[in-house]
């Protein structure tokens, strides 16, 4: 059984985890920037921090979903080996899945990193 050309994992799916990282980053930055600039008198940032934690949870969940579904693709590959040095659509599919999986890990680290300041910094100053 062989894979049809141009089917399976593609470049857009590969970019999804990093795109989620970017959206999460923007959401945290924009929320904090607006709140701190528009309402400088606010001292209790608890609502903002909870919002950031919620967004972080959603982002990690979304990346985890992509990660686990990619893992399944990768495990159920058609010829079962771990190399992808050949010019077949199947190996290309598996290669992109592998890169996506690693990018999921990187994205989760990036997302959690960005959430750390919200956990330890409690004011706009």
């Amino acid at each position: 059984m062989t894979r049809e050309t141009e089917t399976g994992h593609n470049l857009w799916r590969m970019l999804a985890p990093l795109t989620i990282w970017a959206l999460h980053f923007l959401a945290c930055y924009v929320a904090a920037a607006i709140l701190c600039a528009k309402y400088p008198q606010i001292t209790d940032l608890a609502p903002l921090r909870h919002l950031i934690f919620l967004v972080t949870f959603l982002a990690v969940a979304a990346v985890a979903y992509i990660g686990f579904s990619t893992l399944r693709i990768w495990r159920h590959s058609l010829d079962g080996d771990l190399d992808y040095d050949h010019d077949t659509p199947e190996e290309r599919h598996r290669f992109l899945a592998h890169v996506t999986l690693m990018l999921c890990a990187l994205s989760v680290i990036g997302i959690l990193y960005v959430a750390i300041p919200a956990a330890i910094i409690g004011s706009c100053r």
Partner: protein
Amino acid sequence: MSDIHQGQAHVQDAQTERLREVWKNPVGWRRFSEVNNSVIGHWYTATAFAFLIFAGGLALLMRAQLAVPDNDLVTAQLYNQLFTMHGTAMMFLFAVPVFEGVAILILPAMLGARDLPFPRLSAFGYWSFLIGGVFVCGSIFFNAAPTGGWFMYPPLTTDTRQSGIGADIWLLGLSFIEVSSIAAAVELIVGVLKFRAPGMNINLTPLYAWYVLVVAGMILFAFPPLIVGDYLMELQRAFDWPFFDPKRGGDPLLWQHLFWIFGHPEVYIIFLPSIALLAMIVPTFAQRPIVGYSWIVLSALGTGFLSFGLWVHHMFTTGLPSLSLGFFSAASEAVAIPTGAQIFVFIATLALGKVVSSTPLLFAAGALAIFVFGGLTGVMLALAPFDFQAHDTYFVVAHLHYTLFGGMIFPLLAGVYYYYPFATGQKLSDHAGRVAFWLMFVGFNATFLPMHFTGLRGMPRRVFTYPADVGWDWFNFISSIGAFVFAVGFSVVLIDVLRPKKQRPDADGNPWNAGTLEWLAQRDESFGMRTIPIIRHRYPIWYQKNFVQDVREGRFYLPDAEDGRRESLVTSVLDAEPEQCARIPGPTFLTLFAAIFLGATFIFATYHWWISTLASAFLTLATVLSWLWTGTGEIPEKQFRDIGLQRRVPLYRSGPASTGWWAMFITMTGDLTAFLSLMFCYFFYWTIHTDFPPGADGRNGTYWLAGSACLVILAWASTLLARRLNTAGYPAGVRSALYAGVALGILGVLAMLAGPWFSKMDPTANVYPATVWAIVIWVAVHTSVGVIMQAYCIARAYAGRLTARYDMEIWNVTLYWHFACFSAVVALATLVAFPNLT
């Protein structure tokens, strides 16, 4: 040409002769009409190096000035020009263009293509770069160079009395050069995705091409914010619109945001392509495939994305909320992970291979050592509290030169030694290379290592002199000596490159015994690849049997040019299946003229000669239209082309299957980024002001703007209808729909300008009217360009060159209108609705 004869000697000779004839380079004064990637790539690279030497000379003058305390070699004013031009020229005229030049030079051969998809665009980009670069650099000889630092912070640079014409030269000259960078990005992305040799699935693509893809994508998202910044700052300088003037509601910090949203990814835009050269060099000298191909891809992509989350680490001391600083600090630390991954991959490849010692590898090793050191100080600076202390001191100067030398100059010089035989057929001297390396390595460290200490001892950047008794003198003296030692080392390379050479490396043109495709290209022949091969492995020269011979004897695709046309293969994005035979345009002067007129437009604008500016803009438009009319959307004489090995592919594709559609899509992605940056400015002012938009005054002119939005939507719908009618085969309906589109578009533009005009918004009074005008003008210009495109389609339809079968133009114009309509609706809806919401 039947396949049975493919490969017989006399047939081969006849084929080669035809290819030669078709790809012949123009001679004499016609050389300036050249578009072939190998020639343009040479010019591009050589010009970038010329600017490097210029900018390096400025650095030596600075080091001579700083060698001893209280020196008066140069004046403070000249010193300001020196450091501004040094940074500007290195970043904009060397680092980015040299990436484009090298990529244009080697990428087609690496991908197994005969040229890039849009060679005329490459030529246009080159001429734009040359004209803009000479204009910006020339200013220093007239004492008119910019003086505000390479990042041009207002309010210093918006004060026309303090900054003079230099700031205008910077803004307009570099905006012009940014055009060439975006042109190159479009060219390179389409090249990597659609011009790979058949069988070169995306998992077999050379790593250099992966990096090029990522970097070109980054250019699309990084350069547009700077273009918007330039746009706003020039409006302020030329017409006194107060975007960065706090007295009238502006904010200098906005410039810093726009600049560094560009500026930080820029660092990676120049770093990644040089590291990409290492990814080609290291496997060759380890004589084995790279270890962890997918890790490199992960690293390139990860760095590319994360680098956009770092811009505020240049602004840690501007008083932003500490929570915001935390986000950027965290992202700055995170980017070390993918950046580090590629370093480990190189080390692992060397550790597992049989290392062949050589000059390129020596430069590569030096690069890794220096870059790791610079990376470590980067991790320090990413911590906000440390940055508070070291900000604007020589510590930062030391850090950035360590990363850029380690990440950019040394890998690039490794690339020069490695690819010199590819580019010229001759090898540089190994002996001189080693001497040069050690002089440069020692000189570099002597220059920049002491700067860490001068910085920690408090020496600020950009001071033209310093007193004797503060403990900076010996460090500065050593730095200055180091700089000249480095310059001697670089001169050795330069002399070696320029000296006449006779010997040939070896017969088959692969002196390093490399495995990748580019070493097959025939440099004596302007067609490059004798035939477009089928790829089965990442290192085909090492692992595919009889590969070199089969290519040289023309046993693969397109071994001939029997139609007398320059051709290459278009393949599918993921699996590189042949999809089309692309006819590639040949030499023309139009690209040169277009660049000259566009350059004149920017240069005249610098001096506020508005009539000449308008005339040049009109000539640019006319030239571009004639370029499009004569050079694109050609209707082939037959439907299919026999490409050999019993395959036939179409000669004409349109819509998403064509390279032109992708080029439009990519260009418009960059354009959309610019538009969103402009909208970011609107909301930025909203966050910092309580009266932005200003109550009832903000609601003036909303009926005009709302009406304009409706008209633009209708103009877009007409274009879409025209495309559908064209596909369905109603030529009269197509023309009517396009006429309607033109009328609606013009009315839409007039209505949107009428909004602020009739509500008497004075853009010089306050930042709100200025922002409204800036957005409206932006959208009006884009809609007008859309109207010109519709008119172009009408003309094509009357000329019988836009038909149901040959419909590339209407597809691309509709795509443009999707973006233009989206921008107009978002902009106008914001201007109409937002004042009512707040």
